[in-house]
């Protein structure tokens, strides 16, 4: 599309960059405000502006957000909940990605009745509002003895993540060269042999896409966490919301900003390190066919 803009005056180029830079600054503003104000003492936020750099830099808000801020009735900071989120996200991502790879392989390499309907059913399942399964799932977790546990959250996130991971791998394997699989079979590779020796070693891009997608989704989940966990198993998003919305008395904005940044940190790092795959996941997750 570059050929649209051949005859460009320097002036319009300048204007273009001015607009782009302005928009970029606007988009960076919230994260700037978060970071800058998390290093200020509270009275400096009150007397100054949210835009100004700190006069007296302090890491107190970060220490407080991490280990002493009041979450509900306990003064634990975000730390235990941050750990909960990792305990949730690691198995959640691993299990749902593995299942997705297996499903994608089976759905593309084998014919069986009802495959199209099954695919449509999985496709629709990634769109459903979770409100429509929230009540029965609460009951299920209760029956299974998983209510209020990290294990329960892993289960829920895997169940409602399978749709995405299956679609990722199905679309990837559908475009996989058939000859490679055929020749491996000729050489005597069995069902799992093909997956292990041919497909998985060539799946790095889609594995990364799936891992990043699931990591971001599960880390950022709030609805399941708020519905199915208690103080021992809150994920970090629920703890953050608790900290910000239920603090009585003085509102410690600086601590809230530090806490929000702590909760955002892992997904931001993933995004900065592998933005390309993040975008691929978004695109694959949006044009699902």
């Amino acid at each position, binding site marked *: 599309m570059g050929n649209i803009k051949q005859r460009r005056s320097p002036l319009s180029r300048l204007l273009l960059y001015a607009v782009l830079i302005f928009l970029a600054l606007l988009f960076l503003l919230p994260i700037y405000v978060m970071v800058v104000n998390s290093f200020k003492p509270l009275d400096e936020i009150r007397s100054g502006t949210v835009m100004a750099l700190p006069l007296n830099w302090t890491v107190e808000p970060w220490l407080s957000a991490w280990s002493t801020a009041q979450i509900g009735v306990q003064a634990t900071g975000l730390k235990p909940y941050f750990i909960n989120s990792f305990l949730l996200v690691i198995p959640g991502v691993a299990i749902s990605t593995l299942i997705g790879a297996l499903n994608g392989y089976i759905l593309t390499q084998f014919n069986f009745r009802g495959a199209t309907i099954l695919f449509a059913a*999985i496709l629709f399942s990634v769109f459903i509002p979770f409100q429509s399964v929230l009540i029965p799932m609460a009951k299920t977790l209760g029956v299974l003895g998983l209510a209020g546990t990290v294990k329960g959250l892993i289960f829920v996130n895997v169940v*409602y993540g399978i749709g995405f991971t299956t679609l990722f791998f199905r679309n990837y394997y559908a475009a996989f060269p058939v000859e490679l699989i055929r020749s491996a079979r000729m050489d005597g590779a069995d069902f799992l042999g093909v997956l292990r020796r041919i497909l998985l070693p060539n799946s790095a891009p889609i594995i990364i896409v799936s891992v990043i997608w699931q990591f971001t989704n599960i880390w950022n989940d709030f609805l399941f966490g708020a519905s199915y966990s208690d103080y021992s198993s809150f994920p970090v998003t629920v703890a953050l919301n608790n900290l910000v919305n239920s603090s009585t008395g003085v509102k410690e904005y600086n601590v809230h900003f530090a806490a929000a940044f702590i909760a955002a940190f892992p997904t931001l790092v993933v995004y900065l390190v592998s933005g390309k795959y993040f975008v691929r996941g978004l695109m694959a997750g949006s044009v699902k066919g």
Partner: protein
Amino acid sequence: MKAGALPKLLLSPSVLLVLVCVYGYIMFTIYLSFTSSTMMPAYDWVGSAAYRRLFNLENWDVSVGNLVVFATLYISIAILLGLLFAILVDQQIRAEGVFRSIFLYPMALSFIVTGTAWKWLLDPGVGLEHTVRNLGWESFSFGWIKDNDMAIYCVVIAAVWQTTGFVMALFLAGLRGVDAEQVSAARVDGARTWQIYTRVVIPQLGPVFVSAFVILAHMAIKSYDLVIALTNGGPGRSTWLPSVFMYQYSFTRNEMAVGAASAVLMLAAIAVVVLPYIRAEMKKATHG
């Protein structure tokens, strides 16, 4: 290849989970909406009582009205800005990757983080209003988030900030696929740049508009986290959405049947938006 026993066996747990935990649970929720469930699920069939009660509740009217306002603005602004950003970024600029990353990073954040950041940014006592006043403009006022009539627009602002970069990425992919020959032909005919966009390029982006609409509409209907973190439904109930209503009635107000009925209606709204799209995608998938 015909599926033997092993592939079927390995696929079956997933099939079972999707059938039970998605479709089975949806059926269960639909059933609950026809019972008299209060704090716990009850299994007595009482017909459409919960729906009649729902439609008589002012809280539901407010939630649906808010959703209409929110969804309309959110979808249209995000699509317009996303298209604009994509066109700006597509001008063979320097550091294109940097700009793209900056516009897209909010998408990596949790809505709770976004909500927290914007909550204080929009708060008159600490955020923009406070800042502008301290800079010398004493009479400046920007208190939408505390205003019953305006708070819903704050939800729109934060939601647009979060998703515009995503819409931009969709449009960028579309722009890169536009037929270059038609563009050159239009240029030879002496068309100006903006004319090329309005007459040649944008008409070719139809499918992207559809995808963007479907995705944003379904996100709007599902929106919950952002409202909870940003306004917690307030002030009063002025930023309640059906998702907030559903949670309130199901889990805190002990009217589970009404909560289930609201969930069913949310699902129906999403089905109306998404099913035609899935049909089209399926056709594409089966016909290459």
